[in-house]
Structures are given as C-alpha cells and as structure tokens.
C-alpha cells in the first residue's frame, strides 16, 4: 500500500476493517476474468470507450512547434474521465454485497459520475456536498437528484469540499456494513490510490495502442493536469515503462505561486498525512492544511495522490504549474481553434503543452489528456469575463 514513503493507511480504527475488506475484495477481483470482462463491457457500451486520440492540427500550426494531440476523455459519458473509476468501484461494491454507495463532491462532477453509475446498477446513492457548494452548483445538484441520488448538504466548517469529505467519512464509519465509499481520485487510504489508478489506466492503455496507429509513434511527452491526480495517473501509468516518454503533471498555480493563492502541492508542498495517506500537502508551519485556490474546482485540493509524490521524488514524472490566466488562455484557444470546449482542469494541461510545444520541433508529439469537457465551466469563464447569465 505504499509508494516509497507515500501512501499507506492513516485512518481511525473504525475504518480499518472496511479497508481490509476492500483490499481483499479488490485483490480477488482485479484479475478475475468475469470482473474484467464486465468492467470492459461497461466502459465500451455505457461510457463509450475507447475515447479517440485527436490531432489538434490547427492549434499546433498556430504555435508552430510540436504536434499536440488530445486524448479525448471529454467524450466519455458524463463528460470526463471520472466515470471510468466510478464504474470499477460500483462493480466491486456489488460483488462485496454493498447496495449503497456514497461519495463526496465539490463542484459536483464526481457526485454526478457516482450518481450515474449508482442509477445504472440500481444502487442507493448519497452524495455529500457542502451547503455553500450546493448553492453554487445548483445544476449539478439537480442532475444528481434526477439520477435518483440523495444530496446530503453539509453545514459544518467552510461548507465546501473538505467538510463534505469529513462528513462522507463519518457516514461511512457509521454505515460501513452495507455502504461502499466511492473515492473519486488516486488519494485516500490504501487500496484506493492503486485501485483508482488501475481503473483509470485504461486511458493510457488505449493511448499506447492508438498513438502508433494514428500518429505513427508514441508521443515524446504526455501531459496531464493534477489535482488529486487520477486522470494523470490513468494516462501516465502504462507509459511508466516507456522511458523515452516524458511524463508531465500540471498543477494549478492559481493567482501565481508567489501569491500563496494556488494549489501546487507537489511544487510547493511538504510531505504530511491527510485523508488517509501520506503525500505532499499544502500546510502551514503547524501542520494545518491550507486553503487552496484555483479557477478550476477539480484542481482546488491541498493534497495529491501519493503515487505522484513518489514519481516526483524518483524523477520519473516532472511537475509544472500553470496559472489561472494561462489556463484560461488555453481554454479559449482550444474553443476557438479546435472546436472543443475543454474542462478548466484540462485547460491547465493544455497551457503547459502550449508552453512546451513552442520550443519543440514540428516532428515531435505532445499527448495531452483532455480529461473532461468544459460545459460545466462556462459560467466560471463567463464570470471571469464579466458576463453573467
């Protein structure tokens, strides 16, 4: 359950048994042919996989450097990579005899993905969400309700993601016999980080096959945004053994690293323990977790998956940062030059790719994990531009 010094199981004793159960179940089913077949069937028929790779020719030409390709996770059912993992965990929960799933959500994306798979598999679903987020993300709240999920408003603390996570954890402890907690990223106590990565690595496995077919060879660089880090681990993992491929994770620099208003845990954080694992954290001198900032709700997280922490330390992946402003510029480029509205999370990866491409040659290739579509973000972008609707 460790990645070098990172990862592990840092939870109260009340959750240990549930995590043991989960670890055993996952070990049993991860290579079970029937499980794998069912997972792959759902990815194909429900999610719409494989997602294609796409040559952003127009944009690449404009930049005048490396060729930029996208891995189109935005085309997945529910609009992002999140659903891959939710399906895997829901199938596992079913095999474990759990008829109820819970999840926490900030902007609502993981909540919608969880509600979606719960509906698909006929499971009861509760999604914990801070009451402040409920107010700000009314459309996603309504989506979850349409999908039959109960949205549990959390009124404690700052009434946002962190409090929703705490509350989900509490609910899980109290109902652990019949309830499965679907964590949405490669964080949390073991086995979550490895399991979520495994469910997401279909992204990289597909790319490994698709890039030689579509582009003639593997990319020189693979770029992905990192909040918790599941889309990045999903595309990085199958490339880890391809030494010639540079792996670049992109953290949110928010208003700028120098302002303190950012979410760059790998770049400026220090190791610590949060949400069940040891990893890089943004924390103060007293070990209190700091508030983060990013225009992208999905990157607005003070920790990061422990495997990224390890990949950083051993140097197999490198981590760069992109400010809100740079991400928004890439967002607009992608809309106008490629006809794809990218998620603000993915826009961070795009901005980094643009920066790198400019100093590379036109026969080189950068593959960006376009982890999600940006329809969910257009209100945020509009607000930034002074537009209200």
């Amino acid at each position: 359950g460790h990645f070098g010094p990172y990862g592990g199981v840092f939870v109260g004793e009340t959750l240990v048994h549930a995590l043991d159960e989960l670890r055993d179940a996952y070990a049993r089913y991860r290579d079970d042919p029937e499980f794998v077949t069912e997972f792959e069937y759902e990815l194909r028929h429900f999610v719409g996989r494989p997602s294609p790779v796409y040559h952003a020719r127009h944009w690449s030409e404009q930049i005048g450097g490396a060729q930029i390709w996208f891995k189109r996770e935005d085309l997945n059912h529910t609009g992002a990579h999140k659903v891959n993992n939710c399906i895997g965990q829901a199938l596992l929960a079913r095999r474990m005899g759990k008829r109820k799933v819970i999840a926490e959500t900030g902007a609502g994306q993981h909540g919608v993905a969880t509600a979606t798979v719960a509906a698909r598999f006929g499971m009861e679903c509760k999604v914990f969400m801070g009451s402040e987020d409920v107010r700000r993300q009314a459309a996603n709240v309504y989506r979850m309700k349409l999908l039959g999920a109960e949205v549990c408003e959390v009124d404690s603390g700052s009434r946002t993601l962190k409090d929703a996570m705490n509350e989900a954890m509490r609910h899980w402890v109290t109902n652990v016999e019949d309830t499965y907690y679907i964590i949405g990223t490669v964080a949390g106590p073991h086995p979550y980080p490895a399991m979520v990565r495994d469910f997401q690595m279909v992204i990289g496995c597909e790319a490994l096959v698709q890039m030689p077919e579509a582009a003639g060879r593997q990319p020189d660089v693979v770029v992905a945004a990192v909040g918790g880090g599941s889309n990045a681990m999903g595309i990085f993992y199958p490339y880890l053994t391809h030494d010639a491929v540079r792996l670049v994770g992109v953290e949110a620099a928010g208003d700028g690293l120098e302002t303190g208003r950012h979410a760059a845990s790998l770049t400026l954080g220090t190791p610590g323990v949060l949400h069940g694992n040891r990893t890089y954290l943004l924390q103060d001198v007293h070990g209190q977790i700091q508030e983060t900032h990013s225009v992208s709700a999905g990157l607005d997280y003070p920790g990061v998956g422990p495997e990224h922490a390890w990949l950083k330390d051993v140097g197999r992946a490198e981590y760069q940062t992109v400010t809100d402003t740079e991400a928004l510029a890439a967002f607009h480029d992608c809309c106008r030059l490629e006809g794809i509205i990218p998620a603000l999370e993915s826009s961070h990866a795009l901005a980094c790719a643009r920066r790198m491409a400019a100093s590379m040659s036109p026969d080189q290739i950068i593959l960006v994990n376009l982890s999600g579509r940006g329809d969910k973000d257009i209100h945020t972008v509009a607000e930034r531009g002074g537009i209200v609707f």
Partner: protein
Amino acid sequence: MSAQPDNRIDRTFAALRAAERRRAALVPYIAAGDPSDEATVPLMHALVANGADILELGVPFSDPSADGPVVQRATQRALDRGMNLSRVLELVAAFRRDDQNTPVVLMGYANPIERMGLGQFAARAAEAGVDGVLTVDYTPEESADYTAALARHGIAPIFLLAPTSSEQRIRQVAALARGYVYYVSLKGVTGAGHLDIDDVERRLTAIREHVTIPVGVGFGIRDAASAARIGGVADAVVIGSKLIETIEQAVADAAPQAVADKAAEAAGAWLKTVRDAL
C-alpha cells in the same frame, strides 16, 4: 518494552485498582483552546478538582474527519483563535506547574505531529508533562517510528479498538499500546452512537484476552447513569461531546473576561455528577 514504571497513567490506574472500592477512571475530553486559550488550564484544574482521573486534551486539526460535529466545532473554534500543537504543549506545561499527578493525554491527528517532527514532538511533549498520545489516524501498521519516538521519552502511545477489530488486530494493538486502550463504537465518530451495554461487555472480554493494560470506553455516555453503566464494565470512562456541549452552553452569553470562570464552573459541576455516580 513496557512503559516506564513512573508513567502517571500507569500509576493512576494502579491506584484505582488498589483502592478499597474499585471504580473506573473518569477521563474527560476537552479541546485545547476552547472556549479560549486562557480558559484551558483553569478548566483542566476544575475537572481534576471535580473528579477527573486523566485528562484528554484535543489538539486542533484543520481536517478532523474522525470527529463528530460537537468536537469538530470545539476544535474549529480553537483553530480560529490560533491554537496549534506548540501552544497545546505550552498549556500542558502550564497545567503541570500546579498539578504533577494527573495524567494528560493528547488526542489528535498525525499531520501536526509530523510537521513538528516525531522526535521533536516526543521530546517537547515529555518535557511539557504529557503522559500519553492518541493519534487517531496512526494505525499500528504506520506507527513504528511514532511509537519508538514516544517510547524514547516515556510517553504512552494510546490506540483505538473497534467492534470490527479482528483478533489479529487486537493482538497487534496489545503489543504496541501503552497506558490504556480506547474502545470505540463502530458508529465511531466522537459523540455518536447509542449504548448497548451487554455488547460492550462482550467486546471488552474479547479484548482483554490479549490486552493486559486498562481498556477505556468512550461513546454513548451522556449522563451519570450511562457513565455508571459503562464504568461497571470498563476500566475508564471517557466523556467528550456532552462535556463540550455543557461548556458551550455555559459560555454562550458570557462576557469575554467571564468565559474561563463560567466554563470551569459548569464543566466541573457537571463532571461531579458523573463522578458521584461511578
């Protein structure tokens, strides 16, 4: 390796065991810095004066995911006023100036301790007069460095056990834990759960097959009667949420300069009713 013989926790339990009328230890929990920084030490003394055998002092953490709403509110208030681990240790040291006997146990999360550094924390805690530490999210598997650091300074690492803890798990905890073991309900966030005394008794019996140090129980205790029932089967009775609520109510409308006194008075009065029932 056993805890050093002069550990206040061990001495406290030994004294209770040796008493003519054996009774369970009374262990109140308060969050350091709540209702205010200045109120904490007087409050600790008031609790001791009204029958506390061991004091549990909550170390505020920004993400207290194992705490129920009442404890979370209390630690958040403390955080908002700038409480932190260093300051908690100073409070313990201040308490120790007037009380050399009552054991003090810190209860909190791993990250503030790691941030200070395990070695430095253990040294400073021992120097301040801390006797035990319960770190909610240090599982036995992840505790090797932590327990070693505490042991070097004679501080007892206190661990949790739950209804779902396997026999293997109980053995694992038995091998590591010092001072006492804290049995919590599966409805295991602080302040939650209802009391099934027969079930608790069965669990304690199973735990005691492996755990030779005292076993405390800390959930479902809302008043003197429930404390008495738990006290009949457990070696220690931990009381947290109800005590914090009592303090909250006492200081709700208090003038700033009156907060410390009101908190100490109300907490002491309520704790006395519990102690009298044990």
